[in-house]
């Protein structure tokens, strides 16, 4: 709690390869509240920082089921209950005709859940974030590869963590003010 003025320590690396190696070693050293930043997705980096709970597929599945059910039930309600009309002598509950709208609604809801679920789980939009206070962090959308150890990590200690990060041979270490 006393280090609340510091958000964490940031180390910058030269390449994706170095970043993923550093992430593995930091995680192995017992730092669990860490994050890595890169200009493009790096395979295995999320696993390296100990991120396994990806709930996006679940959100999409639920969205798709809700979309499909609501699409079908809407058509059933309209065609068989509230506004029954005889179209070409077909039964009111003519389910083959309802398949297309059901399908489209499934895709629509699942797709929107994928987008908004991903943004919500990522906590976006978030215009302000402490990492943006570090001037070098501008390169995170260009060619910079960053690793941050948060000050909330139980093992975090200003001096010792800095020493540990130095051992990973980064290009630069900077303190992230909160």
């Amino acid at each position: 709690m006393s280090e609340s003025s510091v958000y964490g320590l940031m180390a910058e690396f030269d390449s994706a390869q170095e970043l993923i190696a550093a992430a593995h070693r930091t995680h192995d050293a017992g730092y669990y509240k860490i994050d890595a930043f890169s200009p493009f997705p790096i395979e295995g980096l999320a696993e390296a920082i100990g991120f396994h709970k990806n709930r996006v597929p679940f959100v999409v599945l639920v969205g798709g089921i809700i979309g499909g059910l609501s699409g079908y039930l809407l058509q059933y309600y309209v065609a068989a209950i509230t506004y029954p009309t005889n179209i070409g002598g077909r039964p009111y509950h003519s389910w083959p005709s309802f398949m297309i709208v059901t399908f489209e609604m499934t895709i629509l809801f699942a797709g929107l859940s994928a987008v908004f679920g991903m943004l919500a789980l990522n906590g976006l939009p978030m215009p302000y974030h402490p990492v943006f206070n570090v001037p070098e962090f501008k390169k995170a959308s260009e060619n910079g590869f960053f690793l941050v150890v948060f000050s909330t990590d139980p093992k975090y200690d200003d001096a010792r963590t800095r020493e540990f990060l130095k051992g990973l041979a980064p290009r630069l270490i900077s303190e992230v003010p909160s």
Partner: protein
Amino acid sequence: MATNTQIPVADRRAPVMEPGHTFVTIGEKVSNIVLKRPISLGWVLGFFIMFSLMNMLLFALGYLFLKGTGIWGINIPVGWGFAIINFVWWIGIGHAGTLISAILCLLRQTWRNSINRFAEAMTLFAVACAGVFPLVHTGRPWLAYWMFPYPNTMNYWPNFRSPLIWDVFAVSTYFTISLVFWFVGLIPDFATMRDRAEHPLTRGIYGILAMGWRGSARHWHRYETAYLLLAGLATPLVLSVHTVVSFDFAISIVPGWHTTIFPPYFVAGAIYSGFAMVLCLAIPIRAIYGLEDFITMRHLENSGKVMLATGLIVAYGYGIEAFMGWYSGNQFDSMLLWNRLHGPYSFWYLSLLATNIVIPQLLWMKKFRTSTFWLWVISLVVLVGMWLERFIIIVVSLHRDFLNSSWGMYYPTKWDWMTYTGTIGMFLTAMWLFVRILPMVSISELRTLLPEAHVHEAEEVKQ
């Protein structure tokens, strides 16, 4: 063995990206088109022409709202004229964008990475143009919201057994999903633009659009999952949209429409015309904006191959239509075949065969596939051909009704032509603005193509 045979093949083909690029040069090259490049006189002139065409569309639609659909060439029996022809044509063009962004993503075709962004933009603008037509064709477009199911004081609900309502759902879902797919792809690039922009206002605008994207590994992981799932959802969606459009015809009993070949034949035709539009736009854009490093001959040649393949499926569709006209023994079907070949519109049917089937066969030859000039000409020919196809399907089938007493002819009026060319103006106006305000090639996806972007897990374990 496999690797031995692969090497020479790979050598003969143009690379997906020219060598010598780094993470920085990719960002620089793409974002400078928007951030640094001054607006040229040619751009302003082109924009002026396209914007004028778009205003002609507004004028034509204004007059339409005043007078009604009687100003068009439609009549009884030809109740569906230019509006539906153009609707099907535009929506088909959109399909290539989704094919490139979704289906080629699932198939792990890395060459898609440099053309998907503007192909998706093309999809959005084409679907927007397509959407204009059924709307104004309703006659009273200000009541078009009646097509959506919502509780109302009239106690009225739409008929879900009608393919026209399926169309409403298919097209609006398609537009929405294409829009969010495009936007999701843009988020990391907005962050690059934000960090590269020098003017505080531009930085602010791209900053708002980037929503605070910071490239966290957790974010990238969810992002990639969401993107892959969207690709998986968009794939059946794009196949369904033109299928549903073809149901507008196939569900009816009109000769030439009532066939089971329609859904696959429409989808193939859509991709055919869509790739033609991609080439039509990509060839001038890469030359003007110096993007030859990212949009290489490989992309153009591959698009040519897709056109050739889908064109052959379309040719098969024509063949089956003709065969069934003869084989069914149905007098109305065989009359349709005869009428296409010898009736009043036979010139257009023969032009259709020439533009859609005969001329594109040049793509079998590598010389034509690797020449930007010829590719551009052939893609224009295909665009005309696919428009003629919709004309033939709609007008020739309708103008000879079952009874001779209800035969007629269809002649488009100047209002039809003004609306049609107006939507081309609208499409190109949007395209004109797009190349100047958004990164037209996906920066983050291009970066993943560089060898430095790939980590080697094997070395990891040893450390």
